[in-house]
């Protein structure tokens, strides 16, 4: 479909340039090196970071931010390492994901991927305890992803039955390892949890400033 020039947002590239990690967007000269080495493109041939960058430069804001492909990047940084123009492609894609989340909050787009839910649940445990708490993460993520507590528990069980049992039997979680009765089952908490709260608050405020 041809681009409708009157629907383009010439300011979109500046939005990206202003975010930490997005500073080098305009250096892209469309050589495709990023895409040729990408392990996701290898599996999903339509996945194309070069094209996403070009669309941003053109100002195709809604198309870019609602592109589900943003959420299948494995953040492996192969593209970043190989880009001859130092666009830092991996970080640029991370900027787009953050802008997409903001756009969703503003009601402009809808994100189908559960990845923002996962990342949020992960970071919630860090904010609360100072460290990742796998079980707390799963208890928040699955019900949100599935849309209800019961469906969430079911999905969690089917993903975790085998894995959880393995962790238990190997003594990595639970009493069998001799590392403490509740190893891995209860959250490992740091004392300075108030500092974690302050850090997350600062990050949120910084984001609003931009």
């Amino acid at each position: 479909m041809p681009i409708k020039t009157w629907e383009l947002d010439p300011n979109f590239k500046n939005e990206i340039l202003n975010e930490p990690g997005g500073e080098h967007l305009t250096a892209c000269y469309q050589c495709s090196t990023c895409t040729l080495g990408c392990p996701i493109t290898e599996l999903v041939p339509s996945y194309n970071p070069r094209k996403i960058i070009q669309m941003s430069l053109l100002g195709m804001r809604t198309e870019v931010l609602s592109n589900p492909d943003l959420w299948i990047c494995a953040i492996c940084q192969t593209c970043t390492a190989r880009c001859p123009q130092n666009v830092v492609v991996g970080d640029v894609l991370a900027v787009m994901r953050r802008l997409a989340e903001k756009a969703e909050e503003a009601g402009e787009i809808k994100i189908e991927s559960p990845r923002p839910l996962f990342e949020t649940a992960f970071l919630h445990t860090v904010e609360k305890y100072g460290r990742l708490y796998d079980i707390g993460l799963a208890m928040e993520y699955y019900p949100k992803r599935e849309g209800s507590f019961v469906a969430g528990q079911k999905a969690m069980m089917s993903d975790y039955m085998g894995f959880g049992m393995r962790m238990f039997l190997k003594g990595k979680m639970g009493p069998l390892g001799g590392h403490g009765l509740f190893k891995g089952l209860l959250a490992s908490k740091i004392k300075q949890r108030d500092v974690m709260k302050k850090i997350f608050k600062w990050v949120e405020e910084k984001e609003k400033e931009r």
Partner: protein
Amino acid sequence: MSVEKLAYYPGCPSEATALEQHMSTEAVFEKLGVELVEVEEWNCCGAAEAEDPNLVYALNARNLAIAERVNLDIMTPCSICYYNLARANNALKADEELRAEIKGIDPSLEYNGTITPKHILDVLVNDIGLEEIKSKLVKKVEVKVAPYYGCYIGRPPETAFDDPDDPVLMDQLIELIGGENVPFSTMKTKCCGGPLMMTRADLAFEMARKILDTAKNAGADCIALACPLCGMMLDAKQPDIEKALNVKFEMPIVYITQLLGLALGIEPNKLGLQKNVVGAKKILEKVV
């Protein structure tokens, strides 16, 4: 030997899913006579889930500051933790304003940029050194190994400490202890899919499958690695991958510190070899 004491940042998986990496790291460094001082009250580095660089900088300013207060370089056995510590260190060192602003969040985040974050492979090979390690070896580990590096060791360039396309640090350690590196260059630095495991398991499984498949076809007895997320994907999830894709690998996955520990004569249980999900004790037959 140039290094006697280091601050040790174990990272979140060390407490559960990668317990064996933590155990073998401590045992190996004790044997090598390098003291590890655990970063007191360390916090999560943000892993792959903290996508806002400011969050990564602030979270790791705290970890770096704790190590700085005891005046020690900080070492981690996790590639993602290393990447986050190192990029936070770079950003904070370069930007006085950012340092001041982060210190403003809480005084415990005051970091002056006087220490260096290091990945365990870098410390072993470049700081302690192959000669020094060699002088302490008591056994030969005659296994065929597929050395798997994954991400954040050779890339991105701002934090890399090995070659982006053909890294060698782990290869060198494997040769040193009497092992054989099987041809594996096509997979050495491919992503394991770990970051997609919880949201696109189908893609993650396919990425891991390629790595396991290549190692198997190259005749490897095991895959060696140096990152707990790769360990989670290739070891802990291997039975799930086998089931979902209807394949059989039964490929032992070991941390490089576990292999090195065996060559240093450390007891297998102290290296956590009973904790690897895919039976890793098979390789003991090849330790002479």
